[in-house]
Structure formats: C-alpha cells, structure tokens
C-alpha cells in the first residue's frame, strides 16, 4: 500500500533540490567571467539570465521550512530530482547561445553533461563561444563528481543524515568513516589528476602548435571530459582534432583513472599496489578490456581497415578504453563506425559501453564489480553441482579485504544487470520504430543508457523528439543506477495514488 507523502516530505525534497539549483547558478558565474573577459557579450547576458534564474529559485527554495530529517528514501528522491532539475537551469545559457534548435535540445545537452554521457545536439560546435563550451564541461565536472558532493561541501552543515545521499549516486562504499574526510579525499584526487593531466596536455598541445592560452583552454576541457569519463569535446572532431599520439596516451591514463573507484584510489594512495592485481573489480575490468579489444581487433582486421599493428593498436585500443570507461571521446569520425568498421568491431564497442567501469567512479554502465560477482556466483553454482550434495561451498572475493560471496549480493547484481539490459533494449526498440537499423539503434541506445557517449550519428539536432525524450530518460536512469530514479518515481506515484 502506498502512502501519500506529506507536505513536509515535499518541502524537505524541494529545499535540498533547491540547494543544488543554487550551486548550478553559482557555477555559471565562472563562464560568465570568461565571457566578459573574452568579449563574448551575448553569451555573458545568457549566463547572467541563467545564473539569476538558478540562484533566485535556489534561494527561494530555502524559504521552505521543515523539521523533517533527510532519511534514506527522501535522500534518494533528492538525488533523483536534483539530476532532473539541474539541467533545467543548465540548459538556459545553452539555449540563449543560439547553438541549440530548441529548449528540448538544450535540456538534452544539459542532461548529457550532468549525467557525464557526452552525446551532443549542438549545432556548429566549432564556432561555439568559449564560455558556452566551458559551461558544457563544467556541467560534466559537476555531474561527474556528483552535484550532491558540491551540496555536501558547500551548503550542508555536516551530519550523518547526509550520508544517505551518497547511496543513490553509486558512491555507497564508505572510503573513510567521515563524510567530510571522504569529500576531502575525493577533492585531493581530482586536484592531483588535474595538475598532472592539465599540465601534460597543455605542454603537448602548446608544443604541438597551439597558442599558450588556447592550449590551456583545450587542456582544461580535455582533462575535465577524460577524467570524468564524460565525452564532450572542445571541437566537433573530438580527440581526432589534435592528431597527437602523446595526447591520446595522456587521455587514456585519465580515462582509466576516472573509471577507477575512489575506494581503489584510496588504496593506491596508501601504496597498496597489490589491490590492482587482487581486487575482483580491477581483475574483471582488465580481463574484459583485453578480451573486448581482442575481438574488436579481429573485427577490424576482417574489414581490412586496419590490418597493420600500428593502426590496430592505436585506433582499436583507444576506442576500447574510451568505450569501456564510458567516456565518449573519439579519434576517428563517427561515421566510420558505420561505413568502415563492419559489424563485429562496433558490437564490441557496444559491449564495452554496456559493461562500463567501476562502481563508485564517474563511469557508467553495469559496472565491473557486478559482472565479477555474477561470474563468481556462477562458479559457485557449478561447484555445487559437481560436488557431493552435503558439501559446503563457500566462494570469496577480494575487494579491499577478503569477503564471502553472499546470495543477496549475487541477486542484486543480477537484478541491476537485467534492468540495464532492458534499459538498453528500450531505446533500441524505439529506434527500430523510427526506421533505424537494429545495430545502430542499439549502439546509440547503449551509449545513452550506459553514459558511454559514442555515437553512430543517430543523435543529431533533427532527431525525432520521442527518441530525444527517451535518450534523456535513459541518461538519467543509467546515471543514477535505477535506485534514485525509482525512489523519485515512487514518490510521484504515491502522490497520485497513495492514501493519506
């Protein structure tokens, strides 16, 4: 039986969602400064409008007084509503920039940014104002590190109740006992990789011929997109624009780092290198990357596009890492996936995106830990069949410490796996309805649901609006791993049909 949420419930959800909206407004001040500095006058006005709206609404929501505490269910609903509402305001300067055909397109872009997907509906990206392009990447940064984390560090008066917010966003694993310490550690990791990544990229781009200031701008945007496994790029040619192998190497390291869970980063920062080889999630991810790359390389070899070692390795490995970490940068034009890559190699990219990176990272998809747990569960079941009936079969795995494989863990992983497969299929079927080929339709659908961001060209400004809406829903649900989206849906349903 459903109970209708009280007015107090809605007030607490509105108040915390409002804090996120406020943060979005404050974040717009940075591209505003850039727009003013770069003389992008019209875009500066766009950011004034966007920031004013978000800050006003965010501040007004704080007038919602409540004595209700933020429990797990309400916390999840806040996460869900925050991810839906943030792009509403994030889309305003995008729409006013003139690079988007409609508000729906701008909202799509906003959701793609906050969900770290990377699919884009921007027109004439190569002539987009720097401030607007910067804003696209800031949305990725906010989405990647979790808008909620911004809320925690900037607005929240520390408290255990906020801990519930972490669960829905996929950062459920406590790295450190205290939420403030956890947030501080995450910030340190980001700053360290930003220093290393942006420094190296700036040097490579500057030596490659870009002006120092332009190189710095591109380095900052590329770091943001690679480390947050997001996928927007400063130029429409994506990573291919730079035609630089060293740049691709740095991007790959950043993508891998972005796809690693912060729990693993914590272990590595402690110098526990054994975690790389023992951890079930790193092992699963490594085996999956190499297996997928091997089949992809066979596929590329069969098409005859890349038969030499250099081509196979450079193009194939970058795309495998790119897809598996659900980033979405590319070193070849998207249309080549359709016209030159045959069927097998793109199918491997779809598989890589569908599986995704690690839980507790910015990567999307099913997640390596769930695949690892399911395979362990399968192994346990096979052993049970083979051993005598009264034999006790215990399967264990390593994740920071040695853990016994529990039934509920396997069941949970299987449920999420099934939900993700249904999510990918939903977009695939609607694509078929609009006349797209099954393989292309599944590619684009998986790119949206797994936050992969690669495209075979279906996502474009004149895409049918029902598909735009479905992809938005897929990006939202896939990013929040169902739980927060379902909690929000449950709240809406109980408002409509619940008993008082």
């Amino acid at each position, binding site marked *: 039986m459903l109970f209708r949420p009280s007015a107090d419930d809605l007030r607490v959800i509105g108040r915390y969602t409002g804090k996120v909206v406020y943060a979005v407004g404050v974040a717009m001040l940075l591209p505003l400064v850039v727009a003013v500095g770069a003389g992008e006058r019209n875009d500066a006005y766009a950011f004034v409008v966007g920031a004013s709206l978000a800050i006003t609404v965010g501040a007004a929501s704080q007038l919602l007084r409540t004595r209700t505490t933020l429990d797990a269910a309400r916390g999840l609903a806040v996460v869900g509503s925050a991810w839906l509402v943030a792009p509403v305001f994030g889309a305003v300067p995008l729409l006013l920039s003139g690079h988007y055909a409609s508000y729906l397109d701008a909202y799509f872009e906003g959701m793609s940014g906050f969900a770290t997907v990377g699919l884009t509906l921007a027109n004439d990206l190569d002539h987009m104002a720097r401030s607007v392009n910067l804003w696209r990447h800031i949305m990725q940064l906010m989405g990647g590190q979790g808008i909620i984390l911004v809320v925690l560090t900037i607005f929240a008066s520390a408290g255990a109740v906020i801990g519930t917010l972490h669960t829905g966003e996929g950062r459920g694993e406590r790295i450190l006992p205290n939420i403030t310490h956890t947030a501080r550690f995450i910030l*340190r*990791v980001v700053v360290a990789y930003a220093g290393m990544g942006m420094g190296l990229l700036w040097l490579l781009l500057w030596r490659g011929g870009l002006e120092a200031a332009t190189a710095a701008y591109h380095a900052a945007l590329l770091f943001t997109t690679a480390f947050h496994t997001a996928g927007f790029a400063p130029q429409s040619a994506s990573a291919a624009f730079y035609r630089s192998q060293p740049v691709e190497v740095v991007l790959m*390291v950043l993508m891998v780092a972005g796809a690693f869970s912060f729990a693993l980063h914590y272990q*590595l920062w*402690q110098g526990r*290198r054994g975690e790389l080889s023992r951890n079930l999630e790193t092992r699963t991810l490594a085996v999956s990357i190499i297996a997928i*790359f091997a089949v992809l390389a066979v596929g590329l*070899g069969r098409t005859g596009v890349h038969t030499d070692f250099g081509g196979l390795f450079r193009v*194939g*490995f970058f795309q495998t890492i790119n897809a598996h970490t659900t980033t979405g940068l590319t070193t070849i034009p998207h249309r080549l996936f359709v016209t030159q890559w045959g069927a097998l190699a793109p199918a491997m990219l779809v598989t890589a995106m569908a599986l995704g990176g690690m839980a507790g990272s910015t990567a999307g998809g099913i997640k390596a830990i769930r695949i690892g747990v399911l395979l362990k569960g399968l192994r346990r079941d096979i052993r049970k069949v083979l051993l005598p009936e009264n034999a006790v079969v215990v399967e264990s795995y390593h994740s920071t410490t040695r853990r016994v494989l529990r039934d509920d863990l396997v069941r949970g992983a299987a449920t999420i796996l099934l939900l993700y497969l249904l999510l990918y299929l939903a977009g695939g079927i609607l694509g078929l309805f609009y006349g797209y080929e099954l393989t292309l339709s599944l590619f684009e659908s998986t790119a949206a649901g797994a936050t992969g961001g690669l495209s075979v060209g279906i996502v474009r400004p004149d895409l049918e609006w029902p598909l735009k809406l479905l992809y938005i829903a897929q990006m939202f649900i896939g990013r929040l791993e169902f739980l927060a989206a379902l909690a929000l849906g449950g709240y809406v349903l109980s408002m409509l049909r619940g008993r008082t």
Partner: protein
Amino acid sequence: MARRDRDSAESILRGGLVGIALVTAATVGLAAAAAVVALVISLLY
C-alpha cells in the same frame, strides 16, 4: 602546527604520486597486453 601541516602536505603529495604512478602503470600494463594481442592479430591478417 606548521610541522603537522607540512607532514600532511608531504603525505598528500607522496600519496598522490604513488597513486598516479600505479594508475599509469596499470594503463601501461593493459596497453602492453593489448599490444601483444594486436601484434598476433596483425600477423594473422
């Protein structure tokens, strides 16, 4: 207090360098395995 801050900054720097080095090593390890696979497949075609 200042000494504690310096120690803390040093430990952060050390941790960061070790962490980044290990992630880089993991990426290089994956690339090396992929290179062997690519070499074998390029010989087949």
